[in-house]
Protein backbone atom coordinates (compact mmCIF):
# COMPACT_ATOMS: atom_id res chain seq x y z
CA UNK A 1 0.00 0.00 0.00
CA UNK A 2 1.45 3.33 -1.08
CA UNK A 3 0.47 6.82 0.03
CA UNK A 4 1.69 10.27 -1.01
CA UNK A 5 2.71 12.83 1.60
CA UNK A 6 2.73 16.53 0.69
CA UNK A 7 4.76 19.09 2.62
CA UNK A 8 4.03 22.81 2.61
CA UNK A 9 5.65 25.93 3.95
CA UNK A 10 8.10 25.32 6.73
CA UNK A 11 7.51 21.56 6.53
CA UNK A 12 8.69 21.53 2.93
CA UNK A 13 11.78 23.43 4.05
CA UNK A 14 12.41 21.08 6.98
CA UNK A 15 11.86 17.95 4.88
CA UNK A 16 13.78 19.28 1.92
CA UNK A 17 10.96 18.04 -0.32
CA UNK A 18 7.42 18.99 -1.42
CA UNK A 19 6.27 15.41 -1.80
CA UNK A 20 7.32 11.87 -0.83
CA UNK A 21 5.73 8.46 -1.23
CA UNK A 22 5.66 5.97 1.62
CA UNK A 23 4.71 2.31 1.91
CA UNK A 24 3.38 0.31 4.84
CA UNK A 25 1.79 3.26 6.68
CA UNK A 26 -1.67 2.23 7.93
CA UNK A 27 -2.94 5.35 9.69
CA UNK A 28 -2.15 8.99 10.42
CA UNK A 29 -0.64 8.29 13.87
CA UNK A 30 1.84 5.89 12.29
CA UNK A 31 2.57 8.48 9.59
CA UNK A 32 3.30 11.22 12.10
CA UNK A 33 5.57 8.94 14.11
CA UNK A 34 7.43 8.04 10.94
CA UNK A 35 7.81 11.69 9.87
CA UNK A 36 9.00 12.86 13.27
CA UNK A 37 11.62 10.11 13.27
CA UNK A 38 12.73 11.01 9.75
CA UNK A 39 12.72 14.79 10.26
CA UNK A 40 13.46 15.50 13.93
CA UNK A 41 13.20 19.27 13.40
CA UNK A 42 9.42 18.84 12.91
CA UNK A 43 8.78 17.80 16.53
CA UNK A 44 8.00 21.20 17.96
CA UNK A 45 5.95 22.51 15.03
CA UNK A 46 2.19 23.04 14.97
CA UNK A 47 0.39 21.36 12.09
CA UNK A 48 -2.91 20.09 10.75
CA UNK A 49 -3.33 17.02 8.58
CA UNK A 50 -5.42 16.90 5.43
CA UNK A 51 -6.42 13.56 3.92
CA UNK A 52 -7.34 13.95 0.25
CA UNK A 53 -7.82 17.72 0.80
CA UNK A 54 -10.04 17.34 3.92
CA UNK A 55 -8.72 18.17 7.38
CA UNK A 56 -8.84 15.12 9.68
CA UNK A 57 -8.51 15.03 13.45
CA UNK A 58 -7.23 12.10 15.50
CA UNK A 59 -6.09 8.72 14.26
CA UNK A 60 -7.42 8.09 10.76
CA UNK A 61 -6.96 4.98 8.61
CA UNK A 62 -5.13 5.33 5.30
CA UNK A 63 -5.77 3.48 2.04
CA UNK A 64 -3.85 2.85 -1.16
CA UNK A 65 -3.41 6.05 -3.16
CA UNK A 66 -4.32 8.45 -0.34
CA UNK A 67 -2.77 11.90 -0.40
CA UNK A 68 -1.89 13.19 3.05
CA UNK A 69 -0.82 16.82 3.45
CA UNK A 70 1.05 18.23 6.42
CA UNK A 71 -0.19 21.78 6.88
CA UNK A 72 1.67 24.34 8.98
CA UNK A 73 -0.30 27.30 10.45
CA UNK A 74 -2.12 29.29 7.79
CA UNK A 75 -1.16 32.84 6.94
CA UNK A 76 -3.54 33.85 4.15
CA UNK A 77 -4.89 37.37 3.83
Amino acid at each position, binding site marked *: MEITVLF*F*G*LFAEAAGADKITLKGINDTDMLIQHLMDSYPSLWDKKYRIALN*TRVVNGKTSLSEGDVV*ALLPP*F*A*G*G
Partner: protein
Amino acid sequence: MTEKKKPNVFVEGAINPQFIADSIAKHSSKKGIGAHDIFLGQVRNDVLGDKEVKAIEYSTYQPMAEDILLEIREAAFREYNLVCMHIYHSIGRVDAGEICLFVFVSSKHRKDAFEACRSIVEKIKADVPIWGKEIFEDETSAWKENR
Protein backbone atom coordinates in the same frame (compact mmCIF):
# COMPACT_ATOMS: atom_id res chain seq x y z
CA MET B 1 -25.06 28.03 -11.84
CA THR B 2 -21.99 30.27 -11.99
CA GLU B 3 -22.13 30.09 -8.18
CA LYS B 4 -21.46 26.35 -8.29
CA LYS B 5 -18.23 26.05 -10.23
CA LYS B 6 -14.91 26.72 -8.53
CA PRO B 7 -14.07 30.36 -9.09
CA ASN B 8 -10.55 31.50 -9.98
CA VAL B 9 -9.14 32.94 -6.80
CA PHE B 10 -5.38 32.92 -7.13
CA VAL B 11 -3.52 35.77 -8.77
CA GLU B 12 0.21 35.74 -9.46
CA GLY B 13 1.86 38.57 -7.48
CA ALA B 14 0.15 41.66 -6.05
CA ILE B 15 -3.47 42.56 -6.77
CA ASN B 16 -3.51 45.72 -8.86
CA PRO B 17 -5.77 48.65 -7.85
CA GLN B 18 -6.78 48.84 -11.53
CA PHE B 19 -8.12 45.29 -11.32
CA ILE B 20 -10.20 46.37 -8.30
CA ALA B 21 -11.54 49.38 -10.22
CA ASP B 22 -12.51 47.18 -13.15
CA SER B 23 -14.30 44.77 -10.80
CA ILE B 24 -16.26 47.63 -9.24
CA ALA B 25 -17.15 49.09 -12.66
CA LYS B 26 -18.56 45.74 -13.83
CA HIS B 27 -21.20 45.92 -11.09
CA SER B 28 -22.88 49.02 -12.48
CA SER B 29 -25.09 46.78 -14.62
CA LYS B 30 -26.40 45.01 -11.48
CA LYS B 31 -28.84 47.70 -10.51
CA GLY B 32 -30.39 45.80 -7.60
CA ILE B 33 -27.16 46.24 -5.63
CA GLY B 34 -27.28 48.94 -2.96
CA ALA B 35 -24.14 48.15 -0.97
CA HIS B 36 -20.66 46.81 -1.62
CA ASP B 37 -18.20 45.91 1.11
CA ILE B 38 -14.62 45.42 -0.04
CA PHE B 39 -11.87 44.09 2.19
CA LEU B 40 -8.27 44.49 1.07
CA GLY B 41 -5.33 42.85 2.82
CA GLN B 42 -2.10 44.78 2.38
CA VAL B 43 1.38 43.47 3.18
CA ARG B 44 2.80 45.30 6.23
CA ASN B 45 6.44 46.18 6.76
CA ASP B 46 6.43 44.65 10.24
CA VAL B 47 9.69 44.73 12.15
CA LEU B 48 10.83 41.41 13.65
CA GLY B 49 13.81 41.90 15.89
CA ASP B 50 15.63 44.62 13.99
CA LYS B 51 14.66 43.51 10.50
CA GLU B 52 11.89 44.97 8.38
CA VAL B 53 9.59 42.87 6.22
CA LYS B 54 10.14 43.78 2.59
CA ALA B 55 7.75 41.28 0.98
CA ILE B 56 5.72 38.14 1.62
CA GLU B 57 6.03 35.10 -0.61
CA TYR B 58 2.66 33.28 -0.66
CA SER B 59 2.09 29.63 -1.45
CA THR B 60 -0.98 27.38 -1.26
CA TYR B 61 -2.23 23.81 -1.47
CA GLN B 62 -4.43 24.70 -4.39
CA PRO B 63 -6.93 21.80 -4.67
CA MET B 64 -7.69 22.00 -0.96
CA ALA B 65 -7.79 25.82 -0.97
CA GLU B 66 -10.27 25.77 -3.85
CA ASP B 67 -12.52 23.28 -2.04
CA ILE B 68 -12.53 25.35 1.15
CA LEU B 69 -13.08 28.61 -0.75
CA LEU B 70 -16.06 27.06 -2.54
CA GLU B 71 -17.51 26.03 0.84
CA ILE B 72 -16.96 29.55 2.19
CA ARG B 73 -18.69 30.96 -0.88
CA GLU B 74 -21.68 28.62 -0.63
CA ALA B 75 -22.05 29.24 3.09
CA ALA B 76 -22.05 33.01 2.50
CA PHE B 77 -24.83 32.72 -0.11
CA ARG B 78 -26.84 30.49 2.26
CA GLU B 79 -26.41 32.71 5.33
CA TYR B 80 -26.68 36.18 3.80
CA ASN B 81 -28.83 37.81 1.16
CA LEU B 82 -26.10 38.55 -1.41
CA VAL B 83 -26.18 39.57 -5.04
CA CYS B 84 -22.60 38.49 -5.73
CA MET B 85 -19.20 37.94 -4.19
CA HIS B 86 -15.63 37.61 -5.42
CA ILE B 87 -12.43 36.53 -3.68
CA TYR B 88 -8.89 37.01 -5.00
CA HIS B 89 -5.67 36.08 -3.20
CA SER B 90 -2.09 36.54 -4.30
CA ILE B 91 0.35 33.70 -4.83
CA GLY B 92 4.07 34.40 -5.12
CA ARG B 93 5.85 37.54 -4.02
CA VAL B 94 3.97 40.62 -2.83
CA ASP B 95 5.94 43.64 -1.64
CA ALA B 96 5.11 45.60 1.52
CA GLY B 97 2.46 48.19 0.65
CA GLU B 98 0.88 46.00 -2.02
CA ILE B 99 -2.50 44.22 -1.92
CA CYS B 100 -2.57 40.43 -1.35
CA LEU B 101 -6.29 39.81 -0.64
CA PHE B 102 -9.40 41.27 -2.27
CA VAL B 103 -12.83 40.23 -0.98
CA PHE B 104 -15.77 41.92 -2.71
CA VAL B 105 -19.31 41.37 -1.43
CA SER B 106 -22.43 43.01 -2.90
CA SER B 107 -25.97 43.01 -1.58
CA LYS B 108 -29.21 44.93 -1.71
CA HIS B 109 -28.84 46.31 1.82
CA ARG B 110 -25.65 47.15 3.68
CA LYS B 111 -26.10 44.77 6.64
CA ASP B 112 -25.64 41.66 4.50
CA ALA B 113 -22.56 43.03 2.71
CA PHE B 114 -20.88 44.06 5.97
CA GLU B 115 -21.59 40.84 7.85
CA ALA B 116 -20.82 38.49 4.97
CA CYS B 117 -17.57 40.25 4.08
CA ARG B 118 -16.26 40.07 7.62
CA SER B 119 -17.29 36.45 8.02
CA ILE B 120 -15.62 35.49 4.72
CA VAL B 121 -12.36 37.22 5.64
CA GLU B 122 -12.24 35.48 9.04
CA LYS B 123 -12.83 32.11 7.38
CA ILE B 124 -10.15 32.73 4.75
CA LYS B 125 -7.65 33.52 7.49
CA ALA B 126 -8.62 30.51 9.61
CA ASP B 127 -9.40 27.75 7.13
CA VAL B 128 -7.74 28.26 3.75
CA PRO B 129 -4.33 26.58 3.35
CA ILE B 130 -2.21 29.56 2.36
CA TRP B 131 1.27 30.18 3.71
CA GLY B 132 3.30 33.35 3.81
CA LYS B 133 7.04 33.64 4.12
CA GLU B 134 8.12 37.07 5.27
CA ILE B 135 11.20 38.21 3.38
CA PHE B 136 13.47 40.72 5.13
CA GLU B 137 15.73 43.33 3.62
CA ASP B 138 18.73 41.00 3.83
CA GLU B 139 16.70 38.26 2.05
CA THR B 140 16.48 36.10 5.19
CA SER B 141 12.93 34.95 5.95
CA ALA B 142 10.42 33.82 8.57
CA TRP B 143 7.10 31.98 8.28
CA LYS B 144 4.08 34.09 9.14
CA GLU B 145 1.17 32.82 11.26
CA ASN B 146 -2.36 34.22 11.37
CA ARG B 147 -3.84 35.25 14.69
